[in-house]
């Protein structure tokens, strides 16, 4: 957006300078600048932030850890990767052999030595299990890999035009990201055995040479100094939200689902913002431009007319004000009362008259500003008069679905898109459909962290946890699992999840399956309400497992409930009491006291909405 005198607090001269500079800045530079300015204002010196000390001569020795990643369609690449892993182990290396699908891209920053064995599928495409890693590496999110040394073995078939293309792509990209190719790539045809063996010998030779040299003397790879980086102190807040770049925005629901649940990944790089699992993130959304246009058309306003948006006299165009600064999707009793003096419509006067509160409430339900403007004209009001009575756009809070320990500088959200029909018009949740329909990768969202001290993992990493989170309520538990995995916590964990359909609505399914396999998640029960004739919900699964569940409670497990307040949380609460009553041989009162005691000990925490 071009800065103007009308939409900014700058002078014309300043604006000319800024408009010359701003378009030339990269997103990273913009981020840095915003952080810098914010920090500078807080009188914190950031420019001269000390560069991290260089540990000349004392850099840590080259690790004996080698990660072997494979992307395989027919199993050949996998076989070769496993063979390489075996050979490495025989020579005293610690080899980790993983499919690219099972490898967490955020681990890449920690890898020092990487072997890639990958085939090319079809017309130069990566094999299925390499697609996501391939895309990650080729995306903007790929980290700098100055610390990495690598070698690629490419499998292919010379009868195809794009011979070994995927291997070539990996080889090139790893170098672009700063990696050092310690042994040249080898491309194999269908009779790959010989060429692959040669590559493996070469790789082993190089690595052994380095290991030997390293044993006696200085490390081979010099420590790469991180570029001196200004770390602004967190000055971002609800009042001054951080413009977080959107790194990923995907629909978690498969084709044919009734639902749309967005998974957003945002960058916090340079913001200084910190959060803990269980905290929430606030987003300032924008209204649906179509709805804004309808309001403007209804009132026959000029969208470019300038209005003042706050006490400090900030001005915006009417359209911008309605889009970004005011709430127009909720009709309250207060708003109707404030609207009443601006119209002579008798129906409105009657509605707000004393004694008609029930009617007023009934009318406001499921309607918005546009309904009121349409129903109660003609209006005798300048745009500014309407703007002045609107409520400031409130931020929406979402339980954070990631852990900084697993994704430094990122925050992930799980947002269910809200859409419903009411009074003959499709209504949309402001923030959820803003994220679902109008936010692209590369855009920024104004965000802030909203701590939630009442929804926290137990201090003791050995404490068992029971997590109940159907639908988007599962978000904080993804953060919990990431945190427990990253910190190596040993406590047992049990997740209850539910949604409509197994095939399309099993949010984060592959991640839970991976955590179950690795043991980070101990057990999981699922309830898909619309797959069976009788609707099954999480509380039914809890009942089916009541004995074990009570056993966990007796062991001191902490119970977490997240999600729908009206039905789910209430049913789960009742079920919990029933389970304690039944399995603990208690009276209803005793069971209720048991739960109250759990609450006092912070062993029953809820984040419901």
């Amino acid at each position: 957006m071009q800065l103007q005198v009308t939409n900014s607090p700058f002078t014309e001269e300043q604006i000319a300078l800024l408009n010359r500079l701003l378009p030339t800045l990269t997103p990273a530079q913009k981020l840095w600048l915003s952080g810098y300015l914010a920090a500078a204002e807080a009188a914190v010196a950031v420019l001269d932030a000390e560069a991290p000390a260089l540990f000349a001569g004392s850099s840590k020795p080259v690790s004996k850890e080698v990660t072997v990643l494979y992307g395989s369609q027919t199993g050949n690449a996998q076989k070769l990767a496993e063979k390489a892993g075996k050979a490495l182990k025989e020579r005293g290396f610690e080899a980790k052999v993983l499919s690219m699908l099972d490898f967490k891209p955020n681990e890449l920053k920690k890898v020092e030595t990487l072997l890639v064995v990958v085939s090319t599928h079809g017309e130069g495409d990566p094999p299925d299990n390499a697609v996501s890693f391939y895309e990650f590496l080729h995306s903007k999110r790929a980290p700098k890999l100055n610390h990495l040394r690598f070698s690629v073995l490419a499998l292919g078939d010379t009868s195809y035009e794009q011979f070994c293309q995927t291997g070539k792509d990996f080889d090139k990209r790893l170098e672009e990201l700063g990696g050092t190719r310690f042994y040249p790539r080898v491309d194999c045809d269908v009779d790959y055995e010989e060429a692959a063996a040669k590559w493996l010998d070469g790789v082993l030779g190089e690595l052994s040479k380095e290991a030997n040299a390293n044993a006696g003397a200085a490390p081979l790879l010099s420590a790469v100094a991180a570029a001196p980086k200004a770390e602004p102190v967190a000055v971002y807040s609800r009042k001054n939200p951080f413009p977080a770049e959107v790194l990923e925005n995907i629909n978690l629901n498969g084709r044919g689902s009734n639902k749309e649940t967005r998974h957003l990944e945002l960058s916090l790089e340079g913001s200084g913002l910190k959060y803990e699992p269980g905290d929430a993130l606030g987003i300032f959304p924008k209204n649906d431009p179509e709805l804004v246009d309808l309001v403007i058309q209804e009132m026959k306003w000029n969208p470019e007319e300038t209005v003042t948006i706050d006490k400090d006299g900030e001005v915006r165009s009417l359209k911008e004000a309605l889009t970004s600064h005011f709430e127009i999707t909720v009709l309250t009793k207060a708003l109707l009362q404030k609207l009443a003096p601006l119209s002579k419509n008798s129906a409105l006067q009657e509605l707000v008259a004393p004694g008609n509160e029930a009617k007023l409430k009934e009318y406001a339900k499921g309607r918005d500003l546009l309904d009121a403007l349409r129903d109660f004209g003609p209006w005798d009001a300048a745009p500014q008069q309407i703007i002045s009575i609107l409520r400031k756009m409130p931020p929406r809070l979402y339980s954070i679905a990631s852990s900084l320990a697993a994704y430094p500088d990122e925050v992930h959200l799980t947002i269910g898109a809200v859409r419903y029909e009411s009074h003959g018009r499709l209504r949309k949740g402001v923030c959820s459909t803003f994220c679902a329909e109008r936010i692209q990768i590369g855009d920024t969202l104004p965000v802030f962290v909203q701590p939630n001290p009442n929804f926290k993992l137990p201090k003791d990493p050995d404490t068992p946890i029971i997590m109940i989170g159907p639908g988007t309520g599962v978000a904080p538990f993804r953060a919990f699992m990431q945190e427990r995995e990253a910190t190596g916590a040993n406590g047992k964990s049990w997740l209850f999840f539910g949604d409509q359909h197994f095939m399309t609505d099993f949010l984060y399914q592959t991640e839970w399956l991976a955590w179950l396999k690795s043991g980070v998640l101990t057990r999981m029960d699922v309830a898909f309400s619309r797959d069976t004739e009788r609707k099954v919900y999480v509380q039914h699964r809890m009942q089916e497992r009541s004995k074990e569940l009570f056993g966990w409670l007796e062991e001191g497990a902490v119970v977490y409930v997240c999600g729908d307040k009206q039905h789910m949380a209430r049913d789960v609460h009742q079920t919990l009491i029933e389970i304690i009553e039944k399995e603990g041989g208690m009276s209803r009162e005793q069971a209720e006291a048991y739960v109250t005691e759990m609450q006092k000990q912070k062993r029953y925490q809820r984040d419901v909405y």
Partner: protein
Amino acid sequence: MAKVELKAPEGPPSDVERIKRESRYLRGTLAETMEDPLSAGIPDDDNRLMKFHGSYLQDDRDVRTERQKQKLEPAYQFMIRVRTPGGVATPEQWLVMDELARKYANGTLKLTTRQAFQLHGVLKWNVKKTMQAINGALMTTLAACGDVNRNVMCNPNPYQSEVHAEVYEWAKLISDHLLPRTRAYYEIWLDDEKVAGTPQVDGEEEPIYGPTYLPRKFKIGIAVPPSNDVDVFSQDIGLIAIVEDGKLAGFNVAIGGGMGMTHGDKTTYPQLAKVIGFCKPDQVVEVAEKIMTIQRDYGNRSSRKHARFKYTVDRLGLETVKEELERRLGWKLGEARPYHFEHTGDRYGWVEGVNGTWHFTLFVEGGRVKDYDDYKLMTGLREIAKVHTGDFRLTANQNLIIANVTSEKKPEIEALIAEYGLTDGRRYTALRRNALACVALPTCGLAMAEAERYLPKLLDKIEEMIDENGLRDDEITIRMTGCPNGCARHVLAEIAFVGKAVGKYNMYLGAAFNGTRLGKLYRENIGEEEILRELRVLLSRYAKERLDGEHFGDFVIRVGIVKEVTDGTNFHD
């Protein structure tokens, strides 16, 4: 001739051998993993075993990478194959399959190239219910896939009904005799009581197969000349019915055929079965069993792509295998009798059988029975099944015969055929009537390219050239598979396409119209544009230069477009 030592190839057993050995006669952990509510799939080891139960775990590949991004597991679903020896099903069985297809599968029925039914898209939670309904209709899925003898094929030729009935009985006997005997199938799917304790002695539960079954799949088919619709030479055991004086005299026995190969690996190749002798009808079950046990004992259990019987025969030599067979039989095969094959396709439309019954052969494109927008094939067949008193026969060319229609019933069936516009294929070119395609994308895990979904569209374009050259009624066989494993017996078609990558095919030419000669690689890795360009030239030349009655496959060899393949071992030369 130096005596060949009979032994299996050296080498460590393949992983599948371990899975079979440890499976306790095909049980594995299937009973538990089929119940796991967190995944719609099952682990690889169990999927290997699942095949023996007649089902594969597949996934909808159209959405595979999309779902991966969405953090959802692949859209797992099961293919369930129903074993129908000789492709014969009663109207009641048809109605059961029709209902299952709509209730638990993707709303369609696939008639396979081996005369079996396939359901696609069955979710894990519905597999058991589907299996139970199939068995409830006196059909089975046992050994429809896996390293065992598969569905026994048999010519459903209605021209010689009395012989057909007899040949069909032998096909059924062979099929039943070579079924696995394990109780695992009944325990897992039909809730039969577990046999107390798994037998400890190897072989006790499987007297023919033993605990590791066969090294690879094993296929048997019976042809009744002059029709070679079952592609008898593509089978591990091909039996050629010898009819003398209107009676079944016995079978010529051919061994060692198979279609599968691996792209780029010349040690793998398609091969045709070779005739080694003759046996009487009542000897045929024993002959089949003994041949199969030779493969059981000497087949390659180390490398699965070299494990088919054809490689065993080529390695040991035809004569050696024949001697070993006669040693196991304790008697010698007779001299092979003369026979003559004319074609591999089906004869469409109404024909009269014996005893005043009638048969209608219906053209089913790609073997896919479903309701199209403008062609209610599935509904039409359902309505026919409701009134039909004869039977249905699935042909080896993925078509369907409404068989044994009485003269009294014929008008009623004819009326339904007319009402639903069910076609005998006459409105299509002879080329389309002689087309075969395997399932391929999106469900088959092996497919590298489209087949069933694409061939009809390609044919639309080829048919224009066919018309330009006046070849509308000239029968030419054309087949397409998504990979070189050859479920549609690709290299036996005069024009064959084998998938290499999405949109790219290897093109083979020169197979014999009657299924007695393999095709030869003509162009590698070509897309639609090149396919059409090549065919434009080839079809035009064929129309102008062919000899009287000369088939396309013979023509391309005579004029030197491709070299003749005389044996699978020179397929790659």
